[in-house]
């Protein structure tokens, strides 16, 4: 598998705060790659950098070997890199169909084609029944699907998902996991930030762990959750030994 996206030594400084510190990782083409880490680890900042919304203080982002650091979001979308937002950003006054069609217009000039693509994507993410509803009228789960549908309608090669499962109940998570897998199976590489470990374990081929702006571990989901450094990043210093001690006792 070839490398689709490479993040090399990226740092992001906001005044005195180093939000991302020398982070490097890769996303293989055709994979579902996870980016996990405790709150405030810098995941969303890293996403903003990769998708062109922010320019890193230092470091590089490579797209199939080409330097795309700081390139504008709309140009990246044209190249095939699309993102969703953690806080969903629907076009509130528009219907679900029109919301998704905005994404579809990127590669289809004619309205009829864009609408047709939007309806196809809506089916893929399970929104066919809500096509005529205003986006603002949907449930949280529905809005997450709209967010997914809009990004998917741009015809991406790489899809960046920022916590699409956050705020969903377990049955909604169960419903959306196959949707994400279906997207990958249709040939779109996925990089996802996720907190819902059940989904990460289920979906990801490879996981990178970010804590306090640094990549502290990577590997398969099973390797990563067994890594003491990861356990400590989530639960605090010494947690790994205490847990191990209790298991022994």
């Amino acid at each position, binding site marked *: 598998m070839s490398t689709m996206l490479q993040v090399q030594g990226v740092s992001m400084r906001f005044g005195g705060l180093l939000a991302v510190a020398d982070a490097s990782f890769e996303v293989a083409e055709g994979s579902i790659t996870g980016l996990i880490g405790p709150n405030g680890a810098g995941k969303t900042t890293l996403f903003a950098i990769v998708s062109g919304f922010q320019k890193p203080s230092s470091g590089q982002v490579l797209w199939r070997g080409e330097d795309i650091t700081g390139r504008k*979001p709309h140009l990246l979308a044209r190249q095939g890199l*699309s993102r969703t*937002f953690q806080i969903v*950003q629907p*076009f509130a006054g528009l219907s679900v169909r029109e919301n998704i069609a905005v994404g579809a*217009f990127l590669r289809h000039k004619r309205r009829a084609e864009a609408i047709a693509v939007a309806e196809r994507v809506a089916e893929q993410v399970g929104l066919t029944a809500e096509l005529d509803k205003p986006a603002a009228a949907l449930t949280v789960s529905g809005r997450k699907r709209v967010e997914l549908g809009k990004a998917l309608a741009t015809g991406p090669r790489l899809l960046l998902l920022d916590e699409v499962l956050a705020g969903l109940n377990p049955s909604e998570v169960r419903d959306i996991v196959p949707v994400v897998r279906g997207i990958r199976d249709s040939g779109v590489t996925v990089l996802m930030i996720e907190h819902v470990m059940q989904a990460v374990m289920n979906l990801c081929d490879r996981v990178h762990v970010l804590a306090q702006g640094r990549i502290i571990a990577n590997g398969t989901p099973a390797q990563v959750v067994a890594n003491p450094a990861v356990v400590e990043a989530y639960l605090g210093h010494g947690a790994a030994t205490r847990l191990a001690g209790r298991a022994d006792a």
Partner: protein
Amino acid sequence: MTLRDAWPVLAFGLVAALLPAFVTAGTLLNFAIFTLILCLAAQGWNILGGYGGQYSFGHAAFFGTGAYCAGILQVRYGVNPYVTFLAGIALAAAVGAVIGFLSFRSGLRGSYFALVTLAFAEVFRVLANAVPFTGGAAGLLIPLDARPVNFQFGERGSFYLIVLALVVLALLLTRALERSRLGAQLVAVRENEEAARALGVDALRVKLAAITLSAGITGAAGGLYAQYFLYVDSTIAYGTWISVEALLAPIIGGAGTVFGPVVGAIVLHSLAEATRSLVGRIPGIDLVIYGIVLILVVRFPPRRLPALIRARWRR
């Protein structure tokens, strides 16, 4: 755009075109022409403000440019009025593109954008009032010579039909925009600019296209105004009154809809005329009543009207 998309506009045009056949009273036609010119100015504002969500408070800059361009080229250089009219549209559009480039590139949005457009219009007004080239404070008088070749007509009916044709053209243009990629992207920028950019929308380019189109249409209204009243000065052309007219009509009638500005302009001006003719005796009282009714209309907007039209004419 298909006939199915266009028929309500065409129907409106046909019905409105019958007016001169039934009405010959000068004052009423006068009123109709003035209202239609404002419809055009308002439709220009509607494209940028209603569809694009960029609330300009200075559409006078475009109206005035269209008016002055038509007047100056005729009076000073003897250019044919039809040519000066088109030149006015082009120049107004260019002014729109420049103002748009300067303000959108620096990321001005919301009230900041409104203030900057207001400032531009005011600068234009002060300049037009000061330099002799524009006729200064005395204004610019276009010589009366009522021949069709001069874009002047002996009877008002012909001018009414020309203005109406341009309004219908602007409505069709708006409808076509609504159905186009540019229109969809413009509405997306209005609803959420960040999200639109993430979906590959070049927000700067889209907003520039909108303000250029918007300015051109409002500039056409200015050109018609000059051609009809044959007089331009800085308070008419670049005055705040037209900026307010241009934004009030769409907001009252339904911003971001094809017929909103038309409905708004007609309601506003019928209201103004009615109060003026009903209580003519105490000077100024008509404006007081007009102001009160305006407050009520803004507070309780007649949204149901455009909403009803929209519901019937969705797809």
